[in-house]
């Protein structure tokens, strides 16, 4: 149960990230595109805390995100899967190198967007036109990548996981 505290703190940060993302980043949006700060918290939680921490953080953070960005549930689905996949990296990838942080953010944003697209297709939810979709994806990936080192630096200070997250949660 050592990682319960880490996951709860990560969820608090997810909530704060969600609030920031839906308020402050309205002012900082570039061509109406905002970074996905919640995704960065899920990635951090997964890579540091393991599969269970990642998917729990992803699910609940996604549920929170569903409150402000309908449809309710789709964010939870996507972020749970991402949390699960990134959790597999626990113990094999260090999140500290700058380049790794950028790569994690980039792959995470692309994966989230593709998963979201697939989920929307499955549930019959209309999405963005193709051109706009790729433009948004590119800009969002870049924006999230730029902020990743800052977000990871802050999370590193406050969110603490044990070395073997899967077993201790």
């Amino acid at each position, binding site marked *: 149960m050592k990682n319960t505290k880490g996951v709860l703190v990560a969820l608090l940060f997810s*909530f704060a990230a*969600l*609030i*920031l993302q*839906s*308020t*402050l980043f309205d*002012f900082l949006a570039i061509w109406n595109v905002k970074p996905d700060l919640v995704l960065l918290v899920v990635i951090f939680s997964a890579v540091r805390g393991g*599969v*269970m921490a990642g*998917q*729990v953080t*992803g*699910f609940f953070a*996604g*549920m*929170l995100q*569903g*409150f*402000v960005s*309908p*449809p*309710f*549930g*789709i964010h*939870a*689905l996507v972020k*749970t*899967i991402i949390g*699960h996949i990134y*959790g597999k990296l626990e113990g094999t990838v260090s999140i500290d190198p700058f380049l790794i942080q950028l790569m994690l953010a980039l792959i995470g944003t692309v994966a989230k967007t593709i998963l979201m697209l697939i*989920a929307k297709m499955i*549930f019959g*939810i209309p999405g963005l036109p193709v051109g706009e979709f790729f433009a948004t994806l590119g800009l969002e990936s870049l924006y999230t990548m730029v902020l990743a080192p800052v977000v990871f630096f802050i999370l590193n200070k406050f969110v603490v996981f044990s070395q073997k997250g*899967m077993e201790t949660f």
Partner: protein
Amino acid sequence: MFKLRNIFYRQRNMIVLLIFIALSSVSTMFSGEPVMEFASNTGLSLVSFFQGIATGVAGWFSDTVNSIGKIDQLTRELTETQNQLIEYQKASLDNVKLREENERLRSELFLIQQFVNTQYISVEVVAWASENDFSTLIVNKGELHGIVKDMPVVAFQKGTIGLVGKTIAVGLQSSVVRTILDPRSFVGALFKDTRYKGLVNGCGSLADYIEMDMVSKKAVEDLTSGTLVVTSGLGKLFPKDIPIGRWQTHYDAKDYESVVKLQINPVLDFRRLEYLYILHVEENK
């Protein structure tokens, strides 16, 4: 039983994943349903409370930053406006200079039309004899420009030409002009309408009038206020019919005298003289 628990324990990540996927899929599928909407709205109410706080804080920072930006913008606009004002002031000065130039050129044109056969030299007033004395003045041309002593000097003001005086001393590059305000100045004159003659004499630059003496008493009866006094041309120093001044109403006469002394207001404002014209009288004859 133990075996089953062991399997569950080993596969717990996958089991939780499947549960979460199932829950989120159901939530997505039924997101439009009343139950899900209730949950969603309740969650939204909670989140929106914190969003309100964050928006307030962000708005405060944004307003503060915008205020600084606005002050900066206003400062720049003020600087631009000040620069424009300076430009307008310069333009206004240029305009004044152009107007003066235009007035001078018009006076020259008028002079050419007035004295077709008269040659003239355009000069500029460079100094007065002393600060408040408009009896004598100095112009910027002299002997080298063809000016000699006793040449008549005229000026153009407010659309009319007027007699200034005559040259009394000539240097190489400058000349001294005695104006008709000088008490030592005497000019043969007559009333333009009635042709009664007299002698115009200066009263000093402090007086705002000149006197016309030796005017027949009869002339006063025919005079009306504002009657123009011009040069008579007698004595051949000044050309004929150059305006000198206008009679107002005042005159001074003694019963036993047959002539009267009249006060004349000069047509020129001597304090504002800038450009003058020195006439070659010999050519005019």
